[in-house]
């Protein structure tokens, strides 16, 4: 029974990892940028949710759309005002730029919010749905629902709308896309903004499921990268699968192997990179 509980815990956690990977994967696949500030966006969202709850007492699941909207705007501004300036420079440039943003956001947060451990704890935070011997925390279940809804909406947006098609077109061929009249700068900004909004959703969910402080988010860049590599770049089902696998890995590593999940996550990443660099479900294009 213990084993089943661990599997469940890992899967529940995995849905949050999946939306982290999804946002990261969009920016990587379409803009060809590894956004090292992704973890900092998650951190900002977690603190925003926490302060909305601790101050005016807004329920985290009510705050979720507000946080996502705030992060969407932030992402749009950062891409259209700053990163768009270096889109034709080498990969090293965007790497260093987002690395600088990440370090700036985390260190400013560390000064403003201190390194105290915080957690958003609404009244139902420590209550679980009991199924026999199994316990499913309500916040975790809510996270799964949110993750599934967000993923479906993203899929429909990319697949069915004109704007979504233009994003996919830019991902496939930038030159051709701009030739048929797609505004590259605007599309980049929109993609980055959606990715930031997804990070926002993940941050809100994470702030309810575990305690956090600014440095505790650093691991999520590597995690997001691993999820994407594992699932394959440019694949929504891949990101979902990668997230679930990493949820399980991290749960079992935390329980049986080491107290330090980081090393295990890293070891799995190296294994995946060496054995299967295209990912489990990797294909061309963005689906």
């Amino acid at each position, binding site marked *: 029974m213990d084993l089943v509980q661990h599997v469940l815990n890992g899967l529940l956690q995995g849905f949050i990892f999946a939306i982290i990977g999804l946002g990261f994967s969009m920016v*990587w696949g379409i803009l060809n940028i*590894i956004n*090292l500030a992704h973890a900092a966006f998650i951190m900002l969202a977690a603190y925003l949710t926490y302060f909305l709850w601790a101050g005016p007492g807004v329920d985290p699941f009510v705050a979720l759309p507000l946080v996502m909207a705030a992060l969407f705007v932030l992402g749009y501004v950062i891409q259209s005002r*700053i990163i*768009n*300036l*270096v*889109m*034709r*420079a*080498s*990969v*090293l*440039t965007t*790497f*260093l*730029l987002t*690395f*600088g*943003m*990440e*370090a*700036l956001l*985390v*260190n*400013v947060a560390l*000064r403003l919010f201190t390194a105290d451990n915080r957690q958003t704890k609404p009244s139902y935070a420590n209550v679980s749905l009991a199924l026999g011997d199994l316990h499913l925390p309500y916040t975790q279940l809510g996270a799964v629902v949110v993750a599934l809804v967000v993923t479906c909406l993203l899929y429909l947006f990319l697949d069915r709308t004109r704007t979504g098609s233009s994003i996919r077109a830019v991902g496939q061929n930038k030159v051709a896309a701009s030739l048929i009249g797609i505004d*590259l*700068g605007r599309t*980049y900004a929109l993609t980055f903004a959606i990715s930031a909004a997804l990070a926002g959703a993940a941050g809100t969910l994470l702030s309810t499921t575990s305690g956090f402080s600014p440095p505790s988010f*650093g*691991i999520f*860049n*590597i995690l997001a*990268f691993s999820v994407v*590599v594992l699932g394959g770049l440019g694949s929504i089902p891949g990101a979902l699968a990668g997230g679930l696998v990493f949820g399980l890995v991290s749960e079992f590593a935390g329980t049986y192997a080491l107290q*330090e999940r*980081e*090393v295990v996550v*890293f070891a799995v*990443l*190296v294994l995946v*990179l*060496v054995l299967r*660099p295209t990912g489990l479900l990797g294909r061309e294009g963005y689906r």
Partner: protein
Amino acid sequence: MTNLVVLLGCLVLASLAASARARADVRRGAGAALLALLLIAPLLSDTTSILFDALTAMCIAYGWNVIGGYTGYASFGNVAYLGLGAFVAAGFMSRQPGHLALPWFVAIPLAVGIVSVVALAVGLAVLRLRGHYFSIATLGVAIAMPELINWDFAFGPDGVVPNFFGGGRPLNFPLVPDAQLGGLALGADRYLFYYLGLLTAVVGFSATLLLSRSKLGYALVAIRENEDAAEALGINTTAMKSLAYVLSAALAALGGAVVGYKLTNMTTEADALFSITNNLQMIVITLIGGPGSIWGPAIGAFILFAIQEGLRSVSNSSLFLEWQAAVFSLLIIVVVLFLPRGLMEFLRGRERFTWRRLLRNLTANRV
């Protein structure tokens, strides 16, 4: 105040030595004068702490310059080798039972050698990866290394090398007594550590100078410009990148070991050695000076520490330390946007420094 003057003097001399517009004999003279100024610096100033910091940081930045500048591979994990170098050197030099108590001139080169072997092993795994994949893997190295040092299986009481990194007890470098020379007390901080720091900077500079004129250096630049073309020309890119990675780690370990030696207590300073500030510092220095150049890290280090010394003298130093990492990261953003080739851009070519030039850099790679 003296230190600020010395740092600015070094900056002027280094810029002159690097300038393409100066005559060859002027450049050589400026280089010699720079070395002379650094050699007599402890006689001019009664505390050489900030100069020591600048010189060791320069050595570490020269290390980052090899992989990040010449090869064009952003490594975010060099801080791991910096810390590891300090810990391994301490493990050899500690006078605690179970340690070898080697003298520094044996222990530090040995530590650099061991870190190089570790870096080679890591490099062979991560350097099969290109661009994005490589950089993320190095980010993992930075996170994993502090955990590795506390790994019971290898370094615990019953580990493979029992208690090499202290194993629960504090790990210390031996204290250095002040030397006596004809009745004159020579403070260890002021003299011994300063000259050790100078030595690391000279090693970093010389290694880069040799590299830039060697076949390896040209191969690395070729990889940076176009890895597929380099491979097509018959360059063994994996081997070359591995060598660059090892050299980069070795310089980080050298600087780290000397920094650790001065800090003395590894157990309490572990967080400081593996800190994000150290990681940012080597990148900032290289970027400000000019990545992929011989004088870039030297110029970057003199500027960064002159700014720090200036700020420290006008503001309260604890406030400064708290915001240091934030300032470094902001500097990275600003330099990447406005000065992607560093200050060397204005020293190496015909370009003169103008504000318009900075704005042109900002918009050069717009969508």
